[in-house]
């Protein structure tokens, strides 16, 4: 029964990382950094569920 308010998702990639380092995202009004790839993280799991459902788009890294 997750009802997170998720907005403004964008990948973050640092110069020394091969792949995106994480996702900068606003969840329930708080700006948080969510690591990529661990479905055990409840925020990442919910972000990916919404991406798969077409409910959320993650912007590319700057």
């Amino acid at each position, binding site marked *: 029964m997750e009802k997170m308010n998720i907005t403004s998702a964008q990948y973050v990639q640092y*110069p020394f990382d091969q792949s995106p380092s994480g996702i900068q995202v606003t969840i329930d009004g708080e700006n948080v950094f969510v*690591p990529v790839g661990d479905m*055990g993280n409840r925020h*990442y799991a919910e972000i990916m569920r919404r991406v798969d459902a077409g409910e959320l788009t993650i912007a590319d890294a700057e």
Partner: protein
Amino acid sequence: MASNSKNLAELLNSDVTLTATDIANGAVTTDKLADGAITGGKMGIQLGRRNLIINGAMQVAQRGTSGSISTGNPNYGSVDRFKTEAYDADQFVGTWAQVTDAPTGFSYSGKWTTTTAETAIDASELFDVRHVIEAQNVTHLEYGSSDAKTCTLSFYVKSSVTGTFTVNVYNMDSSRQLVKEYTISSANSWEKKVITVIGDTGGSNFGNDNGPGLQITWNLAAGSAYSGTPVTGSWAAYSGPAWSGANQSNAVGTTLNATWQITGVQLEVGDTATPFEHLSYGEELRACQRYYIQGGGPAYADLLGGQGFNITTTLCSMKTYLPVVMRAQPTFSYTGTPRVQNGQSGFNLSNLTGGFPSGNEGRLNMFNMTGTTSGLTLYQPMNLDANAGGGVVKVDAEL
């Protein structure tokens, strides 16, 4: 007869009082003991690590001693490992706090206070307090088999509201639930409740992983989508209307200044509630930090001991060691303004991120952080702390 037993002459003289010396050493076999005859009190020691609940005595509140109850997603606002929910609430405003009002033998309780009452509980609304146990910590309960173990849930509760309440025990891996009722008899008095959680022979066992396993929910108000079906006392597949039974009081959610408190929460294997297993604050804190770590606070507070060097003129890469290996890759956030400083100059950060170094997840407590700012000198070593306004970092791997 053993040499030290009663002899015939003594018995003929009506000397029938047995003393310890009348029983031969090693004469009492296990079969002679009735089931349950030896209690924890008789053993003189308390068997350790019985409690499957973390922070059951509400000792740890890393996030602060009081927080708001979210009207959206269940959230952890104060006491560690216990989250609250006011799902789909309209008017409701409330707090969840660590308070010193507690029954004898305890120092804290978790306290729900309804500061703005819901005018009516709509169908989709649900108010509760929850605790989720990591799946791999309950696989020994052998759910989904004939060996499923019965557990006993005990807790102390105090509320301004009397009546019937429910506890929902939910296997999050097989979506099955057991609902049990308890009664709060006297307003504003501590009462101990003991609930038998029979093992679930249906469904499947908990996954041997770090995901959510067994969830315990103390319902405080429930709309018709989560109530209405009478409690059966048996495990069954998830059903919304069965979530809180047919007699759950809604008054905690609909009464201004209503309170509901809990402490001494213990879930243990077996059909008997033993005395609460008190752990030291340090042990409970470490257990909680597998799920959440908070650092920093006042002006210039150290932020997790981050140390590193500038890898560009705008990025500082830092490493630290967390106190424990966390459950999963954590979500990282901060409040206030962190900075990096070299002992001479401080550079306020416009962003700070953090995560496990690749390849070490779940095994090491190493943690990387990256700060973004400007004007850095390439390769200069830096420390991470808060600026004059203070700052807090939050590392969240909660279930």
